[in-house]
């Protein structure tokens, strides 16, 4: 039995795994203590639960539990990592290297850094969405303190060459931070093997709750510190003040435990389903996958259907919940900056849909999505003047479009 709309926007957020909810429940009511209360059992139970979650998380990403700093989510973790390193290592330099396809939480934080006197290099990506390692190495100066490059991209799912990047960072004595929000819990992420110094991730992208995330901060080889961005009680080794969100943290821990246990099974199932969806949708004429298909998260595909507009398409596929690369909300329409960075023309960027599958996606749902998208694209092309021109062999670039 299908329930509509079918949710295929799991890069935006995932549903909570019922096993996670079950683990969290006691910490809202009976075990409601403050993990910082040292004088009674309420506090001890809460602290114990937080410590256990730290171990579950540490086990997933292969670090020490002491290296986990709890936050409100990946956006806060990104801010804390970048601003925190910028302040802490100010005497070493003021230069940060990142990429043009990062999440806004990284890009806007970097823009803030530029406003307060820092220098930021934004590395371009190729058509596959991957950075050029030689360009990265050449961008490093004696003032460079941080390389901030995401693990897996939220829009196209492209996975950057993390180990090669960290090797360069290590060789040049620069810290390496990665926003791994889309990768942790989905693919094996090992901070030791991957050579990561700081890493941001969050609960709600891996079947955990919203409002909780973490920043991994390396304690050995090298020992990394970040300047706290909020003043207060000095929680989390002084790096992040604020009463711990105990139920959320318990949920994040449980989500990590399940991810570790189910990852192999989930990945095999999701990538097979994703590949089938993609193969079927590519039988539509003039459809293209955006970004690398080789270096990619297993549950994501981003496809452009040329000559149909993304928002119109979204309306046509109303029985599935997906994201579009088009943001048609104002007179000046802004296509996705990530797709633009991959070199897509504006019209192709406007014509894209992002499909994100989850542990709970079924084969039946994929079957439905395939037919639904095929029908919608056919209907809209029937209505599209651009499709008619294409079919008549008219080069759309030869037309002088009105200045809009």
């Amino acid at each position: 039995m299908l329930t509509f709309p079918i949710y295929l926007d799991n890069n935006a957020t995932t549903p909570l795994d019922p096993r996670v909810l079950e683990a969290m429940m006691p910490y809202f009511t009976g075990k409601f203590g403050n993990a910082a209360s040292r004088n009674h059992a309420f506090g001890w139970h809460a602290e114990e639960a937080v410590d256990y979650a730290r171990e579950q998380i540490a086990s997933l990403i292969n670090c020490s539990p002491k290296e986990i700093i709890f936050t409100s989510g990946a956006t806060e973790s990104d801010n804390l990592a970048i601003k925190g390193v910028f302040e802490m290592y100010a005497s070493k330099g003021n230069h940060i290297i990142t990429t043009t396809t990062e999440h806004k939480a990284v890009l806007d934080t970097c823009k803030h850094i530029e406003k307060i006197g820092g220098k930021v290099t934004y590395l371009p990506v190729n058509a596959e969405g991957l950075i050029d390692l030689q360009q990265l190495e050449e961008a490093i100066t004696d003032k460079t303190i941080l390389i901030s490059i995401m693990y897996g991209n939220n829009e196209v799912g492209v996975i950057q060459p993390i180990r090669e990047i960290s090797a360069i960072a290590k060789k040049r004595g620069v810290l390496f931070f990665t926003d791994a929000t889309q990768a942790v819990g989905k693919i094996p992420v090992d901070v030791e093997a991957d050579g990561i110094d700081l890493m941001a991730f969050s609960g709600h992208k891996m079947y955990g709750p919203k409002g909780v995330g973490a920043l991994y901060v390396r304690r050995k080889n090298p020992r990394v510190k970040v300047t706290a961005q909020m003043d207060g009680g000095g929680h989390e080794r002084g790096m992040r003040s604020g009463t711990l969100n105990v139920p959320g943290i318990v949920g994040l821990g449980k989500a990590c435990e399940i991810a570790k246990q189910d990852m192999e099974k989930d990945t095999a199932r999701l990538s097979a389903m994703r590949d089938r969806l993609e193969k079927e949708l590519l039988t539509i004429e003039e459809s293209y996958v955006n970004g690398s298909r080789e270096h990619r998260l297993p549950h994501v595909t981003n496809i452009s259907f040329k000559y149909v507009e993304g928002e119109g398409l979204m309306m046509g596929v109303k029985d599935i919940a997906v994201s579009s690369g088009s943001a048609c909300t104002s007179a000046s329409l802004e296509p996705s900056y990530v797709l633009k960075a991959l070199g897509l023309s504006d019209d192709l960027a406007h014509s894209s849909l992002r499909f994100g599958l989850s542990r709970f996606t079924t084969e039946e749902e994929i079957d439905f999505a395939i037919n639904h998208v095929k029908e919608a694209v056919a209907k809209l092309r029937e209505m599209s003047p651009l499709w008619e021109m294409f079919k008549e062999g008219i080069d759309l670039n030869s037309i002088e479009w009105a200045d809009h």
Partner: protein
Amino acid sequence: MAYSDKVIDHYNNPRNVGTLDKAKNSVGTGLVGAPECGDVMRLQIEVDENQIITDAKFKTFGCGSAIASSSLATEWLKGKSVDEALAIDNMDIVEELALPPVKIHCSVLAEDAIKSAINDYRVKNGLPALEMPKSHH
């Protein structure tokens, strides 16, 4: 964003999708918008010797509101005289379809398409092009 029932109706059952023979002198074609902006409208009218619009067709690449605006425009154009057609204002479309402020540009585009089709017809028939009354973009 929630679309109004009228927008949804036009999107699901677009009126007058199609193509008229642009080589005919009685047919005026307006092509407005740009692919990189996310909307392109092509609106065509067929005009008889009494200056009455006997047929109107559209094809639109764009969001639901853009499709609905052009679909509605073709409905309104049929049976109107060219002068009456020139009087169609984008705000009439906004009102009829209950377009939210962020979608007003879709109605502007439809008005532009009407005027551009009429101008094409005029020029083809030896009449001077009318000045486009508003520059919206």
